[in-house]
């Protein structure tokens, strides 16, 4: 059996392939993106970047009902977007197996919140599996497909960043080929008219009862007996930290956290002296353990926010002297993420800064434009909420506030869920300016294709959606395209459009600097001409720095975009 080091995401892809999955859909989102990127390289699986997570789950359900094993993958907040089909899919059930991956982000490494999606299992009435490393991620996705078919129900697999992005050893096996079952019309199952849905709800409760029995005996939930003085119940990566800190304790390691194995937990609790629940973020297991009337240590000691770690566990439960005298140094300059040298967003935000405007931001690399030196946006809420925020603010303020209302949204985010907001703004007649930062890719998650790029995930040429025509069709008459590298022109157009006081879309179009094919001549600053006025620093380009009263360009970082050349009032840059 071949052994490989795989990330949790790669292991989910491998497991899906081994399980005979033939259809997979996702919208890119950290930390889930690599699942479909990896799976699309295996033979025999149709993979797509869907336009958003709601679409991804619906198309996967469609494929499942048509008889092939199907996967939908997304980050935790993506499941909010897909919540509508999620609840319906629980009633309907499946054709062939349907597995839904949610990759949660405790610690908010790359997200706007740290919601705990195990609760979706409780609310939508779906089984939830929680792997603790890559080997389990691969195993659980295969078991997930089996459970899905055995119980006629979609299965949620909950990863966290530390499982999705950690690499550990995985034993590879071969793919099981499954014939396509084919589509069969089953009106009372797949049509949720109230008359049918009432019956499906009764059926769902029966399926859940059977799943609860399954949860009591499945090897997914594992007892590891050690010293009976201390019993630890845990799931996911928290298990790994707990094993590290308490090598001798007794463990109930839950791989299936919902439906909850009540009897197993009661049995475990009766055999240990002290009971602790160790889990990240919310007290999900703890609530269910307490519902059995058990006394337990949990979030009264452990943090409810951020990631756990072996160190945090030790400090929270049994404080011990530190192993080193060295401490974190809070006075060191922070290194927040920054836009790249030559990033076209730099040009847009340079042109947008200092506009006295109310500016809604959105989700992508360009969210960083809210930080210094640009300070060019006020909000980051959720995918698509730049346009709707600006619309709401515009209606609320009407004529009482002279500041223009602007929304800044990326191309991929616009396709994901900006279009509906734009139609709403046109239909309900708000006076907002929407700027689409069209860098021809999904930048933040590592350059995935989308409906505006002309290519699919599987590398096929396809239709390219025309943003200008699309915005016009959404009801916006004034649609202008600018090149953000041309700073003066971009600024002039923004000011003109603000002055016109009518709804407008500005498409700021220039390929992401990391994928752009043409590179310019690397720029230099002549120290004899530079007067140290710092005008060029307002661009926020990481290739420009300032030493001893003069600006300098770091030649190994510069990509030669030339934006700074236009900014220098003395012509010192060439």
């Amino acid at each position, binding site marked *: 059996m071949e052994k490989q080091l795989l990330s949790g995401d790669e292991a989910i892809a491998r497991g899906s392939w081994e399980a005979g999955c033939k259809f997979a859909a996702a919208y890119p989102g950290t930390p889930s993106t690599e699942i479909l990127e990896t799976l699309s390289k295996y033979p025999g699986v149709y993979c797509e970047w869907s336009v958003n997570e709601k679409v991804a789950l619906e198309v996967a359900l469609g494929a499942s009902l048509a008889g092939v094993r199907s996967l939908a993958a997304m980050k935790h907040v993506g499941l909010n977007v897909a919540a509508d089909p999620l609840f319906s899919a629980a009633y309907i059930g499946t054709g062939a197996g349907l597995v839904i991956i949610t990759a949660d982000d405790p610690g908010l490494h790359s997200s706007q919140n740290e919601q705990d999606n195990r609760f979706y299992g409780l609310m939508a009435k779906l089984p939830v599996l929680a792997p603790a490393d890559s080997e389990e991620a691969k195993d659980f996705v295969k078991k997930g497909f089996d459970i899905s078919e055995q119980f006629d129900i979609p299965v949620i697999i909950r990863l966290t960043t530390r499982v999705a992005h950690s690499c550990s050893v995985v034993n590879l096996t071969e793919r099981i080929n499954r014939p396509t079952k084919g589509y069969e019309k089953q009106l009372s199952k797949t049509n949720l008219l109230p008359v049918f849905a009432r019956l499906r709800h009764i059926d769902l409760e029966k399926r859940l009862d059977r799943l609860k029995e399954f949860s009591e005996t499945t090897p997914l939930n594992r007892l590891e007996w050690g010293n009976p003085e201390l019993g630890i119940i845990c799931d996911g990566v928290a298990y790994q930290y707990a094993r590290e800190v308490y090598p001798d304790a007794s463990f109930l390691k839950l791989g299936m956290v919902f439906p909850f194995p009540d009897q197993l937990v009661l049995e475990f609790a009766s055999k240990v002296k002290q009971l602790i629940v160790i889990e990240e973020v919310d007290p999900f297991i703890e609530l269910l353990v307490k519902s059995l009337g058990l006394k337990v240590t949990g979030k009264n000691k452990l943090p409810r926010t951020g990631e756990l770690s072996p160190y945090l566990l030790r400090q929270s439960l049994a404080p011990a002297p530190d192993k080193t005298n*060295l401490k974190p140094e809070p006075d060191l300059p922070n290194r927040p993420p920054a836009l790249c040298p030559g990033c076209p967003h730099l040009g847009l935000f340079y042109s947008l800064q200092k506009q006295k405007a109310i500016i809604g931001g959105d989700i992508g690399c360009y969210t960083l434009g809210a930080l210094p030196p640009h300070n060019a946006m006020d909000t980051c809420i959720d995918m698509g909420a730049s346009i709707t925020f600006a619309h709401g603010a515009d209606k609320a303020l009407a004529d009482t506030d002279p500041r223009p209302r602007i929304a800044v949204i990326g191309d991929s985010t616009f396709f994901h869920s900006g279009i509906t907001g734009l139609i709403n703004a046109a239909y309900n007649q708000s006076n907002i300016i929407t700027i689409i930062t069209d860098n021809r890719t999904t930048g933040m998650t590592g350059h995935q294709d989308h409906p505006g790029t002309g290519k699919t995930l599987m590398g096929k040429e396809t239709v390219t959606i025309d943003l200008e025509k699309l915005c016009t069709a959404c009801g916006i008459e004034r649609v202008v395209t600018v090149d953000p590298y041309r700073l003066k022109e971009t600024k002039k157009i923004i000011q003109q459009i603000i002055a016109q006081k009518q709804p407008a879309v500005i498409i700021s179009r220039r390929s992401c600097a990391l994928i752009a094919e043409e590179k310019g001549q690397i720029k230099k600053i002549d120290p004899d001409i530079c007067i140290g006025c710092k005008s060029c620093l307002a661009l926020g380009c990481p290739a420009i720095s300032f030493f001893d009263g003069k600006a300098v360009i770091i030649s190994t970082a510069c990509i030669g975009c030339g934006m700074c050349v236009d900014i220098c009032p003395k012509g010192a840059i060439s």
Partner: protein
Amino acid sequence: MNLLVCGVGGQGVLLFSDIIARIALASGFDVKKSEVHGMAQRGGSVTSHIRWAKKVYSPLIEEGTADLIVGFEMLEAIRYRYFLSPNGWLIYDPLRIDPLPVKIGLVERLTDEQLANRLRLTTPKNIPVPAFDTACALGNPRVQNTVMLGALSQLLEFPQEIYEDVIKQTVKPSLVAINLKALTAGATLITEHRQ
């Protein structure tokens, strides 16, 4: 073995860590490696935790238990040195990449001397490895991580050939020659330091 690698997004920290983890696996160990992708990679501070032993549970290294820290940049080496065990080694590139808030003048820039003083306080077992300058001298600043790999190879117990093999398997054929040169140059930096 607990190895922490830190640096700045874009320096090749993740590829470097990937190579070490593969070498540990090929040498028969259980291995875990943990890092974070996404927003942090956009010029932010990047770390990778690599652990190998007969059996490894936690993918994260506990503070004060790293046997080795490899810092690709001075500020980052200082930022994460509190992970080092009292007997651990710190190797670091004395390169400076100022964070954006420093570049644009929002935060005061620490002088080279201030940084060097802080590093000296870390542990007697610290070795500066000018990997970036060496890579530039070899004609390709991007092989900084391979110079570092060569330096690290002198502090780990894996045979030298295994590094060469992994490089041949990982990098593009046209880049094999310069990466092998970088590997040797890195190893030499450590042997020279020891003399």
